[in-house]
């Protein structure tokens, strides 16, 4: 057993668990953050994607023990109170889901993409999200949602810039 210290969604937490335990299991089982999903256990489907210091990471193949000193964001930590993140809004508005099981991973991958590239082309979106599976096949709509979120984020950033001047 090991004592694992984590910062999840801005809150520090301490977990007593097996030293080998995956970040996915800690989130779901120890912290009851079940928005992060199990899909394959080998980093192939993207359902377990979380943000680690802002970068998309597959939590099923990430050892929790190695996550000390890092900021972890799960789908539960994306909205600010009742205010959805623009990527969440875009997925909702575009109907970019069917069963929704891939949606948390898709949204977090999108957040990671847009934080590095605020105007991704269709090809860049496909390249970045290719590790996220949607078995219902809503890929076209997800691309639409990413583009919509990008536009909206760019506008709100422009608004911020204008406000700063």
């Amino acid at each position: 057993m090991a004592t694992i210290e984590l910062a999840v969604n801005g809150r520090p937490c301490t977990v007593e668990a097996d030293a080998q335990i995956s970040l996915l299991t800690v989130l779901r089982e120890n912290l009851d953050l079940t928005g992060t999903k199990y899909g394959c256990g080998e980093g192939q489907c993207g359902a377990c994607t979380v943000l680690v210091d802002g970068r998309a990471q597959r939590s099923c193949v990430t050892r929790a023990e190695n996550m000390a000193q890092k900021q972890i964001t799960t789908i539960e930590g994306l909205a600010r109170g009742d205010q959805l993140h623009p990527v969440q809004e875009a997925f909702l508005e575009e109907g970019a889901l069917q069963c929704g099981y891939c949606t948390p991973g898709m949204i977090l991958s999108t957040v990671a993409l847009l934080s590095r590239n605020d105007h991704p082309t269709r090809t860049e979106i496909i390249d970045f999200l290719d590790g996220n599976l949607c078995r219902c096949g809503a890929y076209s709509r997800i691309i639409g949602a990413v583009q919509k979120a990008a536009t909206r984020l760019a506008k709100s950033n422009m608004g911020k810039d204008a406000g700063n001047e």
Partner: protein
Amino acid sequence: MSETTRISAPWEPERYELASAPVYRFDLVRRDFFKFLGAGVLVFSVLKQGAWSQESGRARARRGDSLPGEIDAWLHIRENGKVRVYTGKVEVGQNVRTSLSQGVAEELRLPVEQIDLVMGDTQLTPFDMGTFGSRTTPTMNLQLRKVAASARDLLIDLAAARWQTDRRHLVAVDGKVMDPITKGSLEYADLVKGQRLAQRIPAEDPLTPAASWTVMGQSLPKLNGIDFVTGKHRYPSDQKLQDMWHGKILRPPAFGATLLSLDSRKAEQMGATVVRDGNFVGVAAPSSGLSAAAIASIHAEWKSEPQPSSKELFDYLKKNTGDGTDLSGDGDRYDVGNVDEAFASSGPRVQRTYTVSYIAHVPLEPRAALAKWDGDNLTVWTGTQRPFGVRDELAEAFRMPEDRVRVLMPDTGSAYGGKHTGETAIEAARLARAARRPVKVVWTREEEFMWAYFRPAGVIDVVGGVRSDGTITAWEFHNYNSGSAGIRTYYEIPNQRIVFHPARSPLRQGSYRALAATANHFARESYMDELASALKMDPLEFRMKNLRNERLRAVFQAAADKFDWGKQKAEPGRGFGMGGGYEKLGNIATFAEVNVDRKAKAVKVVRIVSAFECGAIVNPGDLRNQVEGSNVQGMGGALFEAIQFENGRILNGRMSQYRVPRFSDLPVIETVLLDRKDLPSAGAGECPMIGLAPAIANAIFDATGDRLRSLPLVPDGLKLT
């Protein structure tokens, strides 16, 4: 000789998705609905006698019940004016929670937010066979609309009585009954307060015609969508209870293996509860990590038999058909005219053989169940398309009456026909009984690949006779094992022999989205192109010449127009193809464009155009989503998905070994929806898939001259071999 001979009725031919009724069934105790629901107004519908085997209810009167046993839907208007609708149907991503609510809102003249759908809970909802076969829209939506329309009339009656006025000039609008003369209005909540009214719907209650719909026909977003984008929704695998333990099953090394010996002392020393019951070995422990470690510590010896492999699959299926004595099912056979005479007088018989591999559903959420015992009562939360079927399986497994078993189905992370059975529920319940606490079992991806079931593999032999003017005169079609859904041809052919031959399947097989319609349309629509090519006729013209069904002609024409069929010239490495058909009351035509890199021999699907028609459209946005999704998912089975197996083991049962469609496989997809407001609404989850595989195969032939007759078409890295 031209008379139709129907040896077995092919109305709903799919043996793989029809569950037989349970062997025994105990009557439920009498329910006092108002005690159970609270006061208000209750409206219910009762199925016609004999409809149960095809539809949702079961026509069994239960003595002593406050309501007839064959109720298939009910709706309760609560004292606060909110409406709760109860249906045994379930939500697996097809968005019926939204579309069914739209139906109720439309007829009840109520904002859709006021409606709460209780789905797939065997204690609260009426009996339902299951959510499959694209039946929710044509049957349940209609039933709920009838119930809602009846409830609206009842509310108007209540208002008329309250005002002592003639009901005929009262109208229901926006959750209120209004009197346009006095301008008075009463909220539904005021009308039902203190009431305990239960009413069966009248036999014929007029429904709002599609042309006047205001809520139906609209692209409403997913009703509880916010719970899905915030991670708040709890899928079956997310369920949790106080003191819950995690279960894990010891899997045999091969299908059908029997347990010879077991040493589980280490697992017990770890503090796990170990269960051995026949061939079932499982553990439960406080954490999933501990249960996995406990399972890994068990030493077991198994005995297994040699079994067929995927290399010999198609020979095996043809050699193990229904001629044997121990196979269940008589097969389906359809004869028209005299095929043998017709072939004797037509040109040479050109027989082609098409094959279809086993494929896996790969629902992104694997099977999961949480079971809890309270004394002799069992409650299980699980992801299944057949909550009542799983309840029956549990009752049978534990030899207990059904009314002590409750199965609840939280909205689930997809199914595609893959979640009809209750293995996980039984496993969790068995472990929970031994551990004396709630136990959750979530299958790993590897378990999901190996221990669920597959879309049936099959071999299809086709031979057709055609005159030089393009008129098809004879048609013989034999399907071995894959199934009889969509086996009949919709082309006008005077002489036909169509036979489904059940076979002994080396793997466990079952339902899959669109069932055998995908295989049968692949064979039929590929062969149509082979005939057209032999005659040097345009494939569209050839189809139209032999097609009279107006709805099917309309989708072929609409897709052709959108695709600009015939206006683009095929060039080396670029090809166009089509496929289409009729299934589950829907009509689809799919056109595909492919590029084949001549040097690398790599195939890329670049564009798909589908035209779909399923009667009056309930939710255009969701419908488009279903058609696009069918095309994306269908690309997997068409191009590269195939289960490899040997000696009772799956050889590619991991996500890294079994490829499913990804973003980078996505072609441009264009969807044309034909809205037939004059026709009843039909389902859309399955039919749109069936035209894709032949469209791609035909496009590859157009690009290269290579005729591919096996699904998947290009399993070897999208390369022609």
